[in-house]
């Protein structure tokens, strides 16, 4: 493997290992609820096993050693020797965290430091105690597994070690695998007694392909591990090699069986085996004679069953496991790892394509050529399809983000001595990956806050006539073009009097300042306000809620809070679905162009200002008063063509409706969002810009912020000084 490939493979390994760790964690959490579920246990075991196997490939011996012990413990759970207890589950969760830390060290390409190693050893000791074993020796590469069925006794003739016979496929090197790494890994499982290289596959020099692998190995391994573990070492080349593993003390017949299965000259391998003491020369000759008689040879599994009384159940189990591995392989083949930059570049290009398509459509319209217009509209439709597919590539379900909170809620609640159940719904709701990455921290703050401040201690809950166990809810759903995430608890709700007192103490409001319930609730997002009297490790330091709001707003989202005293608090985060392209609705006002997200547009109605040029504060829309926002007044745009009739775009956002008064409506428009950049970060009500087919720049209106701005009922004065 060249350095480049190795680094890339290492990256992939670390990413995958992290995913496996998540599976491991999810499985352990599920087991806490249902300790009998064998499927989860298997999933956890597989995760640990895969991490160990692939870490071995990269010579991350510390991870291998540690994970091996964890795997051993899991194996005992799986075999039923040990029952799953919550305490053991908690310990295994911590072990999973430790593997995560070791991975962090591997990312930094560092050897784990002494403190980390010590922590690992402490965990292993604890694990051993929990399993009722003596603590393992410090560099615990090889475990002490109970004897396996493979060690079938009887007329054992063979030597006391595993014999592994492997022939690598031609493509192994090209696939980025190094045959030596497998042998190196085997070395971590036990003692390599003997490694003989089989070079029979080498072609004549003229036919030799430098990038092909022609080698095979005959290996004698002294190790207490089981067959699965040895086979697992070769998992990454499972499809690309011929592997035969003979357990210690196998019958000579099995070696002969091996001979039959291998493609090379029988005598040559026979010699190797005789030399390594697996077979005597007499046995070899007998075997070769017999080989001629038995044709075709029965499957290895049958032989095992026939000759050694290996229970058919064991063979079945092996086959089932094999099937699982295959299944997982198939599942991973359905996914393709793509570098995020490549995807971003594609989205950018699609964005340009959308703009260019809009330009073509505009030209076609101008020329009034029916055929051209038709072609342009077909093009637009296709481009819209490509746009949607391209954006879909970046969409991921929010479930992964939510699932992490199971663990956090469990740990934090435990730490605080509270009982809390987390209910997750809407985990299949999809949103842009770049949004998902940035929403984790704000959510974490909200969840921790809810556990720490929201949900009352058990005694208080019981005194208030609530169930002892608190209820925390994470929900996600789509609502008019945005994604809504709710974090709700059934705690005491916000203590408005205390917030008020704190805000006055911190000088945020004056003592005589009267605030409505909503305004008071909004105060918790102010910097430096924490209502908790005790500063805990979790929250209460007064950093948090303002950070939450800032983070959410940096994603062009908003966060609001609804609280019912005594019944709980709900935080509602509203986020745009994507940061790249939206369906927009193009408006004109005073010669400027604006875009509002099409999903938020309910309808359009005409407004007869009859040349007055002043727009009324409300519109009677089918007997309902609709508050109006005059874009010209709000943005301080120059007055122009006041005599024309204005239009009202009725928009909806977060359950509120408002009418935006504009001069012209231009209809739907595929909007490629171009961020305005850091210079315009303080800007409210405008979330970005887009380029029209004509090359003009139009501004994208953030409906929620616009309505909020207008609700302050202070018309914005023209900021451009007339100097």
């Amino acid at each position, binding site marked *: 493997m060249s350095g480049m490939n190795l680094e890339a493979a290492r990256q992939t390994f670390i990413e995958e290992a992290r995913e496996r760790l998540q599976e491991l964690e999810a499985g352990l959490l599920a087991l806490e609820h249902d300790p009998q579920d064998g499927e989860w246990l298997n999933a956890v075991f597989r995760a640990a096993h895969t991490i160990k196997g692939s870490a071995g490939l990269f010579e991350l011996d510390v991870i291998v050693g540690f994970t091996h012990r964890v795997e051993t413990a899991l194996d005992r759970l799986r075999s039923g020797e040990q029952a799953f207890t919550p305490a053991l589950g908690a310990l295994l969760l911590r072990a999973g965290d430790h593997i995560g830390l070791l991975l962090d060290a591997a990312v930094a390409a560092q050897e784990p430091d002494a403190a980390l190693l010590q922590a690992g050893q402490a965990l292993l000791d604890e694990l051993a105690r929990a399993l009722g074993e003596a603590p393992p020796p410090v560099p615990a590469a090889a475990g002490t597994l109970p004897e396996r069925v493979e060690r079938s006794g009887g007329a054992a003739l063979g030597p006391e070690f595993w014999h592994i016979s492997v022939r690598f496929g031609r493509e192994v090197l090209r696939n980025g695998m190094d045959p030596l790494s497998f042998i190196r890994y085997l070395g971590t499982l036990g003692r390599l007694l003997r490694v003989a290289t089989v070079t029979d596959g080498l072609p004549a020099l003229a036919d030799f392909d430098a990038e092909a692998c022609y080698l095979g190995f005959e290996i004698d391994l002294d190790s207490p591990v089981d067959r699965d573990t040895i086979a697992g070492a070769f998992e990454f080349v499972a499809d690309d090699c011929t592997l035969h593993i003979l357990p210690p003390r196998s019958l000579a017949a099995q070696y002969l069986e091996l001979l039959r299965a291998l493609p090379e000259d029988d005598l040559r391998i026979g010699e190797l085996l005789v030399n390594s003491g697996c077979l005597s020369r007499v046995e070899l000759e007998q075997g070769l004679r017999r080989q001629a008689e038995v044709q075709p040879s029965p499957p290895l599994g049958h032989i095992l069953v026939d000759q050694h009384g290996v229970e058919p159940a064991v063979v079945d189990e092996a086959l089932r496991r094999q099937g699982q591995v295959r299944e997982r392989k198939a599942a991973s083949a359905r996914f393709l790892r793509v570098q995020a930059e490549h995807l971003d570049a594609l989205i950018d290009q699609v964005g340009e394509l959308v*703009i260019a398509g809009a330009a073509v459509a505009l030209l076609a319209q101008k020329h009034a050529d029916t055929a051209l217009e038709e072609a342009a509209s077909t093009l637009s439709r296709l481009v819209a399809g490509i746009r949607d597919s391209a954006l879909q590539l970046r969409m991921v379900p929010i479930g992964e983000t939510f699932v992490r909170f199971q663990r956090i809620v469990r740990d934090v609640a435990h730490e605080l001595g509270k009982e809390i159940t987390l209910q997750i719904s809407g985990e299949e709701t999809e949103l842009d990956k770049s949004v998902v990455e940035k929403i984790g921290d704000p959510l974490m703050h909200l969840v921790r806050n809810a556990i720490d401040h929201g949900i009352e201690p058990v005694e208080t809950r019981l005194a208030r006539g609530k169930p002892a166990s608190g209820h925390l809810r994470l929900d996600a759903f789509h609502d008019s073009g945005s994604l809504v995430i709710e974090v709700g608890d059934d705690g005491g709700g916000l203590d408005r009097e205390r917030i008020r007192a704190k805000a006055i103490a911190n000088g945020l409001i004056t003592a005589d300042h009267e605030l409505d319930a909503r305004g008071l609730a909004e105060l918790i997002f102010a910097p430096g306000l924490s209502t908790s009297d005790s500063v805990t490790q979790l929250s209460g330091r007064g950093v948090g809620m303002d950070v939450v709001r800032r983070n959410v707003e940096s994603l062009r989202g908003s966060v609001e809070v609804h609280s019912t005293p005594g019944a709980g608090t709900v935080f509602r985060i509203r986020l745009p679905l994507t940061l790249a392209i939206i369906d927009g609705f193009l408006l004109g006002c005073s010669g400027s162009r604006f875009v509002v997200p099409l999903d938020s547009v309910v309808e359009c109605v005409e407004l007869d200002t009859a040349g007055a040029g002043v727009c009324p504060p409300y519109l009677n829309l089918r007997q309902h008063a609709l508050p109006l926002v005059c874009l010209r007044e709000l943005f301080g745009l120059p007055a122009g063509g006041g005599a024309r009739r204005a239009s009202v775009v009725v928009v909806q956002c977060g359950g509120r409706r408002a009418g935006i008064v504009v001069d012209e409506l231009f209809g739907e428009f595929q909007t490629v969002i171009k961020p305005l*950049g850091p210079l*315009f970060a303080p800007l409210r009500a*405008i979330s970005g810009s887009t380029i029209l087919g004509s*090359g*003009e720049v139009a*501004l994208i209106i953030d409906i929620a912020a616009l309505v909020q701005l207008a609700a302050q009922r202070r018309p914005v*004065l023209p*900021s451009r000084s007339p100097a």
Partner: protein
Amino acid sequence: MGELIRQDCAAAPAESLQLLTFVVAGEMYALGILRIREIIEYGRVTTIPMMPAFIRGVINLRGRVVPIIDLAARFGAPPVQAARRTCIVIVETGEERFDVGLVVDAVCEVLELPAERIEPAPAFGARVRTDFIRGMGRIGEQFVVILDEQRVLSIEEMCELARLAIDGAAVG
């Protein structure tokens, strides 16, 4: 319209400076050319509501949205009135090489000024803030203010000014 220069190397050695000179509000100024990407004709600028006067708006620069700074307004003079020779100089600023466009009344020339003809900024008497000045270049009998684009185009400072303008507008 062509790009003048696109170099990734560090700032010019102390010996001499390559400068682009231009006129803003009747005064001649200069900028080191290393950070200048291109000069384009003044075109349609989309104004951004609620921003201070020196942030003139944004333009579409081959598919990218680039903010436009009115240098005259940034120096406290009345904004540039678009005329036939009005240009936009696209400059990279900050660590992230963020592009901004500068509206100038006219672009003059690119010249190389040896170190001995560059003097430190005067303590007072200049028409622009002293911290905006990187040095004074002597061209013949004339002095030209060499601007420090890191200070003049500091995103943090401009952002803060914009924030003040917006909050002022919201309260007023």
